[in-house]
């Protein structure tokens, strides 16, 4: 496959693997956090961990958009979906995420009209075709998916589609990274920063990590060769005593990001004072809501929501997994009470979640 094979070349991988081997300091473990769930998925899918020495330890970060949605918001989504006038639209991998009252998949089985879409524009099209129904889009994701929601809102306004609204749960990548960097007992040496988010926001938003926390950053694409190259770049920074935001994903990421996408976001959304992250708790100015001008398309303004809060289950150690304090398999319930078919914690739900990726792909490498 063109544009796929090129980034999965086994020989190049071996070459990078040898380079990493040479750069690693025997006996000194370097902990690299891959922030994005897409990276976690690629690392396991391609067996990248087996191509780096024991001295390189991947710590799986909070960048799985499905994983960080708190259970109370899932319950709100289910409440919306259960309204008889509503067609509730969602990305596929949000369907199985359990809230306090089950998942959207179960709500669908009880009779709610829940439909899987591939883009918010599909939801807008459904609204056009079903003028007598209310079509609500479950807007989730980081700055990667938020611009698509923003452009859909702008289009809904331009076309006067009044039976479409977004249930906005978009989050921003900077604040949870700061929360992790501020957490006591932090052991991370450097960051593999997300690629797709950075195509929108650019590389500047990571400057604080090098300036305030002294941790090197490499903005990285999602193919396994990209990840190995990022490891090489980070190990070189550490060896040379440098601390910079470097860009491995130069094929699409610019220093200032995508101004048009950012303008669409700015026009439609604003920062919330605070937002709850599953596993990480409340983080100030870490999420987006629709601006008052867009109240007409804001599901939170148009419908009454339960707005309840559901405590994360006590046995669940997702929070510790998300900050890199423990590995997925070190969690008390990993693989026993908590499995992809019955997830207790959010990291087990999506195949990008650290635990599910590990459960599905990685059990070969568990230290006995």
């Amino acid at each position: 496959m063109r544009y796929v094979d090129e980034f999965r070349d086994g020989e190049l991988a071996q070459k990078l693997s040898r380079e990493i081997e040479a750069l690693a300091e025997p006996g000194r473990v370097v902990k690299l956090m891959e922030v994005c769930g897409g990276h976690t998925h690629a690392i396991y899918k391609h067996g990248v961990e087996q191509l780096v020495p024991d001295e390189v330890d991947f710590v799986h970060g909070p960048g799985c958009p499905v994983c960080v949605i708190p259970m109370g918001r899932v319950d709100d989504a289910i409440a919306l979906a259960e309204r008889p006038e509503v067609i509730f639209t969602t990305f596929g991998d949000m369907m199985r995420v359990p809230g306090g009252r089950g998942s959207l998949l179960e709500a669908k089985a009880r009779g709610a009209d829940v439909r899987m879409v591939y883009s918010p524009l599909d939801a807008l099209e459904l609204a056009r075709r079903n003028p007598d129904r209310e079509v609500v889009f479950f807007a989730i994701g980081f700055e990667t998916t938020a611009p698509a929601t923003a452009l859909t809102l702008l289009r809904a306004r331009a076309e006067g589609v009044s039976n479409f609204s977004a249930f906005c749960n978009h989050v921003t990548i900077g604040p949870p990274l700061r929360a992790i960097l501020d957490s006591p007992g932090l052991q991370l040496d450097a960051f593999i920063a997300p690629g797709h988010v950075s195509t929108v926001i650019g590389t500047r938003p990571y400057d604080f990590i090098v300036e305030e926390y002294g941790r090197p950053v490499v903005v990285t694409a999602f193919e396994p060769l990209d990840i190995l190259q990022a490891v090489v770049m980070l190990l070189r920074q550490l060896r040379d005593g440098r601390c910079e935001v470097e860009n491995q994903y130069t094929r699409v990421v610019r220093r200032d990001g995508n101004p048009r996408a950012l303008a669409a976001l700015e026009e439609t959304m604003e920062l919330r004072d605070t937002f709850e992250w599953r596993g990480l708790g409340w983080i100030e100015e870490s999420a987006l809501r629709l601006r008052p001008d867009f109240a007409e398309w804001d599901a939170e303004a148009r419908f009454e929501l339960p707005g309840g809060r559901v405590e994360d289950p006590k046995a669940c150690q997702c929070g510790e997994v998300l900050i890199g304090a423990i590995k997925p398999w070190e969690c008390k319930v990993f693989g026993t009470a908590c499995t992809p078919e019955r997830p207790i914690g959010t990291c087990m739900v999506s195949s990008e979640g650290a635990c599910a990726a590990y459960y599905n792909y990685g059990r070969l490498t568990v230290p006995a």
Partner: protein
Amino acid sequence: MRPRLKDELITLAHGAGGKATRALVEQLFLEELSNPLLEPLGDSALLELNGSRIAFTTDSYVVKPIVFPGGDIGELAVNGTVNDLAVAGARPVALSAGFVIEEGFEVARLRELAASMAGAARRAGVPVAAGDTKVVERGKADGLYVTTAGLGVVPAGVELGASRVRAGDRVLVSGTLGDHGMAVMIARGELQLEVELESDTAPVHELAASLLELGGAVRWLRDPTRGGLATALNELAQEAGLAVALDEESLPLRRAVIGACEILGIDPLYVANEGKLVAVVAPEAAEDALARLRAHELGVEAALIGEIRAEPEGLVVLDTAFGGGRIVDMLVGDPLPRIC
């Protein structure tokens, strides 16, 4: 560990062929209907009648759209059941067909589908010997559902099963993976992907018969339908208490399938096939088996894709083309597209 059925309601996941389906079958249907013929949960039940061994199977077809590139529900309903018989080592003898038709369905379309079914039956050399028709109110069925059952005769000397598989045996597949599932997914038109891809629906009984001439060297056959190759091989690994090790580079995949799967974040190993055979054969017979598959028009892209190992017990592992390794687990429910 066996998946457990804890759900209060049936969700679509229970129909997807992965762990949820298995939990439903083992912990509800098998518990209630338990008997020695059903218990092996094979593609076909095997029963002795007057000294001959009969294979007996049934399958329902609910595909949407009912006509798709490369086939339709009628052809699928014949081929699918013929294939379930074929991988039990049986020569198909007769089929039955039950139709659940939605009020308002066009007669001309139904005739086309019945004709397509007849074509598939002729190709497989098996008559549709019994049938049933029911009509339900508009909105109570998605156009047309078809259920077929099949009877076949297992020739003397044919012994297949997970218990016959040994470490060192080789794994073959008769052609490219995931064509049917992706062709149907794309034909639904929800993805706005322009990809030319056809379903692989076809009867594999001739491929199976050709392999069975190798005698005891053929250990196990399966048609990897819903849940794909990964699900079929996981069931083998668990039943045999052995490991299946696949080599990613040797998996036959069409570029269009790789590309569409990549865009959707779906693994082609879990995507359905409707005209493929996966076989485990003794190592010394592997090359001969491959040549036999490739000699048939349905097997020209056949490949040796892996081997059976003693460890890790009960798991399917994949040596990635990238040089790493990973587990290929059973899916929980439908493969859901990833958001980013």
